[in-house]
């Protein structure tokens, strides 16, 4: 892949990378015929984000990596890779200095070298080259369909930001209660915290404050603010409107933005599963876990809408019908280097609810807070490779030379 960007596009790209960096730790780069896609998934697999930069965003774009020494059309490939967010962030770290000095930017994934090469042509003729090491990987994909959502509303990102200002900066989760003519936001209080000791904040937004408002299903959805704040930081800097699509409690929320035909971005955020009254203890634990979307046939009226599934494209077969308990084992033993296997706790394929509960066999002892608990339970899913245990002391091949 090689592409050329002008000064304004470089700034947008830098802001996108900053936004992605607040969500996940690895950046997936996928060039396609229609442009460049940058994606990330967070560590607990509860947030997915994809930025799509279309062809007009670039001064020049070619998604194929060619053999520059000896042209051979058979060798041409499209290189998909991922690299640590820290690496690429170090290149685009200071937007102010990019603004001051960068005139054009060249990004290349050459065929013959395993490097992501970024070149900034700056003022005074100065050229900065960044050669970043990357890892090849399979693509990370979240399947969702924008048209399938029950409710959709949109407004300027500044409006969302101003609304969120009402919440204390330490608020982690906000519950959005959708009604036919309004959206009611309130901070979500953990069950473990004494309700009399915390501050409750509630904000109601009337229908006419939105640019677009179409709520078909009255429901309550709770998700984490951290990713939303990252999204708003990007959207506000570029003065974009943000669309929000919600299904029901437990279903992921989709935020989208776009700028004409230049770029668009989608953010899929996991939501908390709803509390069930019937089964007391198991439902409490269900609620306390930060997993999500288990689609409930009864809750959602329009169940024909495809529920988002996060899967590793190469292994689509293994994902289906896998329940929580057993996902632990396959992930660890099958492909240790397959870091993008995403069929784990959060964005998994829907199961009928009762089956889910049986699998919630939590033998974990002291209940740590929600998020930490979920990560603790599924920590093995998140490791790239399985750690080998220390061998027992039997030595099969003693040293030929003694110790000094």
């Amino acid at each position, binding site marked *: 892949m090689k592409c050329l960007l002008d000064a304004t596009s470089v700034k947008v790209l830098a802001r996108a990378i900053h936004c992605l960096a607040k969500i996940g730790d690895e950046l997936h780069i996928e060039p396609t015929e229609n442009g460049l896609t940058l994606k990330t998934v967070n560590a607990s697999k509860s947030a997915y984000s994809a930025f799509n930069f279309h062809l007009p965003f670039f001064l020049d774009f070619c998604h194929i990596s060619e053999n520059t020494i000896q042209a051979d059309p058979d060798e041409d490939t499209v290189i998909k890779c991922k690299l640590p967010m*820290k690496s690429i962030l170090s*290149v685009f770290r200071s937007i102010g200095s990019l603004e001051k000095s960068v005139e054009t930017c060249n990004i290349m994934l050459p065929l013959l070298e395993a490097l992501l090469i970024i070149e900034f042509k700056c003022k*005074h003729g*100065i*050229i*900065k*080259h*960044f050669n*970043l*090491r990357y890892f090849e990987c399979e693509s990370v994909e979240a399947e969702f369909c924008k048209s399938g959502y029950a409710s959709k509303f949109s407004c300027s990102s500044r409006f969302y930001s101003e609304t969120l200002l009402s919440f204390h900066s330490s608020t982690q989760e906000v519950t959005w209660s959708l009604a036919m003519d309004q959206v009611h936001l309130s901070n979500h209080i953990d069950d473990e915290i004494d309700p009399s000791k915390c501050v409750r904040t509630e904000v109601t937004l009337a229908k006419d404050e939105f640019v677009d408002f179409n709520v078909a299903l009255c429901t309550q959805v709770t998700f984490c603010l951290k990713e939303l704040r990252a999204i708003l930081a990007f959207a506000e800097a570029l003065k974009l409107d943000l669309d929000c699509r919600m299904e029901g409690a437990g279903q992921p929320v989709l935020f989208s933005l776009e700028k004409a035909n230049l770029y668009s971005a989608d953010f899929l955020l996991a939501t908390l599963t709803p509390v069930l009254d019937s089964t007391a203890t198991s439902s409490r634990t269900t609620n306390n876990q930060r997993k999500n979307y288990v689609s409930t046939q009864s809750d959602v009226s329009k169940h024909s809408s495809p529920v988002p599934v996060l899967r590793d494209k190469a292994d689509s077969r293994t994902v289906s019908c896998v329940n929580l308990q057993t996902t632990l084992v396959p992930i660890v033993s099958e492909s240790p280097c397959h870091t993008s296997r995403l069929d784990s706790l959060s964005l998994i394929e829907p199961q009928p609810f009762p089956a889910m509960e049986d699998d919630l066999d939590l033998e974990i002892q002291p209940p740590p807070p929600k998020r930490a608990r979920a990560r603790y339970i599924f920590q093995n899913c998140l490791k790239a490779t399985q750690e080998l245990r220390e061998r027992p002391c039997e030595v099969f091949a003693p040293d030929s030379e003694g110790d000094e």
Partner: protein
Amino acid sequence: MPHFSSQNISVEQNHVLMIRMDNAKIISHILKAINFKENSVFCCTKDGLKVTVEDMKSVQLNAFIEPGIFQSYVVKEEEIKFQLNLTVLLECLNVFGSSGLQSGTSPALKLYYNGHGTPVSILLEESGVITDCKIRTVHFDPVLDYDFGTSNVIGRIIMSSECLKEVFCELDSTSDCVQFSMSPDSANFRITTFGHSGTYHVDIPKASDVIESLRCTSPVSFKYKLSLMKPSIRPLGIAQKVSLRIDDTGLICFQFMIKVEDNHNCYIDFYCPADVDFEEDE
């Protein structure tokens, strides 16, 4: 004008060094840029004041202030050397506030030194308020005398200090060292870092308007520890121009030109030895 002459007239005969300045901010502006370590050695000769700050017997910053910048500069011996705590001196000089060189009022300064073993006396006056400080001196430790002969210089660049400062501030901090390369054949002056994410290069073309002159007799490429280069950033920030010279042993000398008053310049030197790979020698 301050009325110092009415004080301590009898003691004046004992001063081996006496400096008077109308604007003490000039001296504190320059000395602040070399204050990367506490101890400094002052060397005063008829050619001016030289203040040296050194670290690990390798990295050295020298500030030169010529007599023309002072209102009065009296040196009664050929060479007067003493060592004192530069941080303390700067705190005294900034006792009326440490606003920048251009802004605010300017305190007047009178500095005396009576010879070996005596403290340095400083009198500062601003708007009628007088401050009297005495700073202990100690016998100076010998400092390295980098004899940077022009005959050994392989590469020399004179360029805009601001541009080099921007480059230095953005250098990859995960890299242990920074490499400077130039060659008669290459069109660029290249600055390279080797960090955790990869290798980064900054190429400044010889023909660029930020480079005033570049002379290079043969290809030169040396690495320097990034941590040792850090003291150069403050003088880079206050200078207008900088000259870099590298000799055949890899010793690099930065010379910063700082404009202080209308037609006066002060200079700061920075010496740093190259990072030598000892394994190669064995």
